[in-house]
């Protein structure tokens, strides 16, 4: 424990007020917040010199309970810190930003992949590159992480967090609907054409049965990648959505989404629920995350339809699949950066043995998946196979603004047939590129 920690342990937190600059920016409001917030800016310290590290997550009840079990083990093995879970399942990012702005943010918190670069760019999270270099614990070994996943926790060549999950998109399908339509079940050789033909054959709109269901999910980017295109280059210097490959991918998606010949209409999805329609046996094929319970929900509740898992169909340039990932990062204002880092590494190790799929090559095995979630044992070989093709977005600091523009100017008119990808892409590209760093 460093000198600051010792000082902290001697003096009651409430007696050591500290105002930071951002609190001052709040002007008069900060005056009122001052007294209560001063304590929050302090590290909570036990009499036994144990630093309390607050962890902010979006975990809902069930996930929070599971996380607490992980934390109990981590805390039991920890020396000098105790991680306190502070789940905020509703309006997570709003609350997180507000607490960070007020100087009362948690020491560690979860960030979905699209937020890490932005928070890093604004200096809100700690650069842990140097700490990682001098750390030889397994969770700190960056070479063990899947490179596309690790990249989402990095910005400008520096590392700002540790990913705790890599969840590739898989194709879930309803074998009964395939049998009813006389269509063969998906195989590894499946292509876009096979997917579209099957969707058309399964669809019976009058009966409320649809071949598939798109709703801006899965991300259209995945299909652009599968066609050989790109939305933001890895160098973050261009948005080549008007290349023939990118246009082909986007148009394939646009020709399916909400088209009652293949897919559920927007109103049905909005009212009946996206995944719920699949579980209810109304959707033939559904793109879902590898962790989703679709392929075993029917074993727990016979009201759910039997669903199997397959690899996503290949596009003209390959079978690239989108991987959802998130990282745990350290608040740049934490009073105990070193202890927070120790807690981060310990916590990450714990989560890697709880969540599937762990973003580390050494842990992303059939055995680990089956051990962590026994219900996924049957699907584990396919999930492991999909890991080879997974990737994430290339992310810019102002990703939220970029995503909104992409959605409003490109996706929405495309999905509702206001124009074709070929017509829209050249017009939208410069608008998107204006927002690049």
């Amino acid at each position: 424990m460093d000198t600051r920690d010792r000082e902290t342990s001697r003096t009651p937190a409430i007696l050591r007020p500290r105002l930071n600059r951002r609190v001052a920016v709040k002007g008069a409001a900060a005056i009122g917040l001052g007294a209560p917030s001063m304590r929050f800016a302090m590290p909570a310290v036990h009499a036994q010199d144990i630093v309390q590290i607050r962890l902010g997550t979006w975990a809902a009840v069930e996930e929070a309970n599971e996380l607490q079990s992980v934390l109990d083990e981590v805390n039991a093995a920890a020396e000098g810190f105790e991680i306190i879970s502070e789940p905020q399942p509703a309006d997570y990012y709003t609350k997180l930003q507000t607490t960070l702005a007020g100087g009362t943010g948690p020491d560690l918190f979860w960030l979905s992949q699209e937020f890490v670069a932005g928070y890093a760019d604004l200096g809100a999270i700690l650069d842990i590159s140097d700490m990682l270099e001098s750390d030889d614990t397994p969770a700190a070994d960056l070479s063990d992480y899947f490179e596309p996943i690790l990249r989402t926790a990095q910005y400008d060549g520096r590392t700002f967090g540790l990913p705790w999950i890599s969840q590739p998109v898989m194709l879930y399908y309803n074998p009964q609907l395939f049998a009813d339509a006389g269509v063969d079940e998906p195989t590894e050789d499946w292509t876009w054409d096979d997917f579209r033909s099957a969707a058309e054959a399964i669809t019976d709109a009058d009966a409320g049965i649809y071949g598939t269901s798109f709703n801006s999910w899965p991300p259209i980017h995945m299909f652009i990648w599968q066609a050989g295109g790109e939305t933001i280059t890895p160098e973050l210097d261009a948005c080549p959505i008007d290349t023939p490959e990118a246009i082909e991918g986007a148009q394939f998606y646009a020709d399916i989404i909400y088209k009652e010949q293949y897919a559920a209409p927007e109103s049905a999805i909005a009212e009946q629920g996206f995944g719920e329609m699949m579980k209810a046996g109304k959707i033939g094929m559904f793109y879902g995350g590898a962790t989703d319970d679709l392929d075993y929900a029917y074993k727990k509740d016979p009201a759910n339809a039997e669903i199997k898992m397959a690899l996503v169909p290949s596009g003209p340039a390959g079978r690239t699949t989108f991987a959802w990932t998130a990282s745990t990062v350290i608040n740049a204002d934490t009073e105990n950066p070193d202890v927070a880092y120790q807690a981060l590494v310990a916590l990450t190790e714990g989560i890697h043995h709880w969540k599937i799929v762990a973003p580390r090559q050494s842990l992303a095995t059939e055995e680990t998946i089956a051990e962590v979630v026994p219900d996924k044992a049957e699907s584990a070989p396919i999930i492991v196979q999909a890991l080879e093709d997974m990737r994430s977005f290339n992310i810019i600091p102002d990703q939220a603004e970029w995503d909104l523009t992409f959605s409003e100017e490109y996706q929405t008119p495309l999905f509702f047939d206001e124009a074709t990808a070929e017509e829209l892409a050249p017009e939208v590209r410069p608008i998107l590129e204006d927002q690049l760093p």
Partner: protein
Amino acid sequence: MFSWYGLTLVDYVVVAVGMAAAMFGVYWLLRRFGVGRETSTGYALILPWLIGLVVWTVGPFLASLYLSFTEYAPIQKGWPTWIGLDNYVEMFTEDRRFWRVLRFTLGYSVINVPLGLIGALLTATLLNQDVKAIGVWRTLYYLPAVLPAAATALLFRWMLASNGLLNDMLSPIYNLIDVDRPSWFTDPEMVLPAYIIMGLWGVFGANTVILLAGLKNIPRDLYDAAKIDGAGRWSMYWNVTIPMLSGTLFYVLIIGIIGSLQTFTQAFFIQHTARAGTFMNVYIYQEAFERNNMGYASALGWVMLVIILLFTLLVFRSSSAWVYYEGERAK
């Protein structure tokens, strides 16, 4: 965990003790300057409210004005960057979303406010009749004002679903004129009508009660005099009731305009299709908390304030032509 709650309790005690000390301090100071005992006590007692006003209203008000001239993300390190009028220039010249949102918000207000006002007036007139169990009816019609807006929004989301109650009720009409059931919240053409239908819910709330109070306040002898002069029911309503109620209508109109331009809760909970646009307050929230543009959101807030002020001023300026005050001298 207990220590955390314990320390929070300490926070509250510290604030309470600090406040009490400040009140005694103010009293002592004023007395030292020769201010009377009663006056000093008064100032000391309103001190908590004054502090609240400065800290929670005036402070954020001025802070948002300053922030509207800056580029500022709440989580950024360092001070906001002063950019002058850039946020305002961007809003009016580059931000296509702003115009769409403004059109949506004004469109809603222009239709919703008059409809709501007329509906509330009619309801209040009905509740002003001498019928049996009128107390029960009045209670029933006031119930919507008691329900939380979020619960109402969720209720309407269910009622206005494609297979919801409203479409089920209207299905004979749809069949008659051969149209599909509308998707109220996913069809961009239907989103505004859906919110207007939802807005009518407010008719049966506080506005009705206020207007009912206004109706009750009209002296009976005016109606008696009108009857003697041979006035019919409609003539009495138009020439007695409406003029005598105009002051109350004026108040309800102002509150209605401000409330409709500040609509937030319904749209926040319902999440209609983005293609239709949204309400200005939702847009401000999205800019501030979802896209981290607190400076730009502050500028939007100030433009909205100016728009509301303009509408309010317009109604105030027009009031001399249609609002009757009993004590006012004829010009």
